[in-house]
């Protein structure tokens, strides 16, 4: 089959590889009908996440048709239509029973490595480094799904792929980001980053009843799409984020702040961003926490920082004292996709939202490698890429 494989920094290729096979009775094989490129894939593409190996298959936003199931998978059969969540989970361990699927204790097959690096393991993820299991990803014609009896979202026929695909990651991720804020009717929610995750966080905050949603980015078409979702926008390349946020909240700061940017934050030439770039270049620091610093500074005391944006390792000059003294609450993590997906599927079916609004590019799998660059560099007005094998 064909699959997009990682061969090093900024080197993704569409290769021919052997088809996946059932390896365990709880596995299933999916024939992929649609898959997407995620902002998280860009962190791998740019070489910021440790633990990738030459030849790893990329991708964790995938849906398709069940092709084959292992002997212990009784709730799926050939021909079922499924969206595959990016977090692989067993459904039985202590964490899964609490709904904390992204920290499932059993799905990471490189558990001992992860135990060493993270202190305790987190869940296995598709197409996302050997620290999280090194499972082949779904930017391919076929995907092997481990723990398939739990790791799936069954979806009805009759709704197009484009509307359902993002149940795999970015819709639940934006949703969990907003849920982590426990939004109250009087809340102002400020959202950094208007990429796909930011777009869903904006709409989730609105649907969950935030009084005012403010969105920050510098890419004109992303800001325009944020406005479409009801947000007041701030272009950080043109105005001071802190000043504008204070203005919009009568000097008090937003109660809730969401980081939908992560470790590759850009900044207009501020001292802290130059410092981060220099340290990252000489590998003294892995991440650029500019957005975190800004959120800690501007957030209202006793407010909440919700962090779906991905961080890889070591952050420097994070004003933790400020956060402590202001009594801020931090909520973060990879998304527990299946904790929210049934409810979100129902909302899609009821017409509360149609997630396909975010798609700007739809191309064949073999055009994937070029699309990584288009998406990363925000060329051609790109916001979200869907690939069809």
């Amino acid at each position, binding site marked *: 089959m064909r699959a997009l494989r990682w061969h090093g920094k900024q080197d993704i290729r569409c290769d021919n590889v052997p088809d996946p096979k059932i390896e365990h009775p709880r596995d299933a094989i999916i024939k992929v009908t649609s898959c997407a490129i995620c902002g998280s894939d860009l962190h791998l593409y740019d070489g910021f996440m440790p633990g990738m190996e030459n030849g790893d298959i990329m991708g964790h936003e995938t849906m398709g048709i069940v092709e084959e199931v292992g002997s212990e998978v009784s709730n799926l059969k050939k021909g079922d239509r499924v969206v595959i969540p990016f977090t692989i989970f067993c459904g039985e361990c202590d964490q899964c029973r*609490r*709904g904390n699927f992204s920290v499932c204790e059993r799905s990471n097959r490189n558990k001992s490595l992860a135990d060493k690096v993270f202190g305790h393991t987190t869940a296995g993820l598709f197409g996302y480094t050997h620290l999280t299991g090194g499972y082949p990803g779904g930017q391919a014609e076929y995907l092997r799904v481990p723990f398939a009896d739990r790791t799936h979202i069954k979806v009805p026929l009759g709704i197009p792929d484009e509307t359902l695909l993002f149940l795999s990651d970015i819709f639940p991720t934006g949703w969990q980001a907003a*849920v*982590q804020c*426990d939004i*109250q*009717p*009087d809340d102002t929610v400020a959202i950094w980053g208007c990429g796909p995750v930011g*777009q869903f966080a904006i*709409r*989730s905050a*609105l*649907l*969950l*009843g*935030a009084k005012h949603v403010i969105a920050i980015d510098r890419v*004109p*078409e*992303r800001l*325009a*799409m944020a*406005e*479409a*979702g*009801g947000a007041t926008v701030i272009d950080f390349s043109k105005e001071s984020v802190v000043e504008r946020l204070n203005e919009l909240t009568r000097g008090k700061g937003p109660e809730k702040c969401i980081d939908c940017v992560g470790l590759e934050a850009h900044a207009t*030439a501020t001292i802290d961003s*130059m410092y981060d*770039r*220099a340290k*990252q*270049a000489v590998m003294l620091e892995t991440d650029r926490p500019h957005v975190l610093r800004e959120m800690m500074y501007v957030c209202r005391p*006793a407010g*909440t920082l919700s962090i779906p944006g991905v961080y890889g390792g070591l952050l420097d000059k994070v004003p933790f004292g400020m956060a402590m003294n202001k*009594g801020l*609450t931090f*909520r973060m993590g990879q998304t527990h996709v299946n*904790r929210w997906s049934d*409810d979100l599927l129902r*909302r899609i079916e009821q*017409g*509360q*939202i*149609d*997630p*396909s*609004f*975010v798609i*700007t*590019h739809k191309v064949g799998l073999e055009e994937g490698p070029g699309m990584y660059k288009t998406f990363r560099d*925000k*060329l*051609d*007005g790109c916001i979200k890429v869907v690939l069809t094998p």
Partner: protein
Amino acid sequence: MSGRRIAPRQAQALAQGLGWFSIGLGLAELLAPHRVARATGLQGHERLVASYGVREIATGIGLLTSRDPAPWLWGRVGGDALDLGTLAAGLRPANRGRERSGVALLAVLGVAALDLACVLSLRPSRPRLPMPLAEYRRRSGLPRPPGAMRGAASDFVVPEDYRTPEPLRPWGGKAA
């Protein structure tokens, strides 16, 4: 400028080259200010030369490490102007090293032209959009205007473990 733009790929490579050049020159100015001052007819201004070295090194690192070299190239153009001003002062008749200042001035002019050509070629030709900006402004994904959708999902019950602790909630906040 002649108006002919350098191809973006080459401009990127040129920017990298200028980065290394900055670092090389900066190191020379910082570590051997006397020799650099003598070579450019600026004797007596060694400290100034060394401080220019620090500037060069900083811009060089910026150029080599950032994805968008443009702001750093503008930094170089500004630095070139500073160098030109300093060297022009060296042209005054009283300066014995006047000729050397003159030669250095010409050299800096050449580099400045290169810096400028490079940064102008890098000027982002704003990527063309697959649809007009107004089209993005219509992409809400919502069935009704956002104002009418506020709170549409308030039937959602925030799970216990995602609730804000009671003392951190606003007074009179949502019960239940």
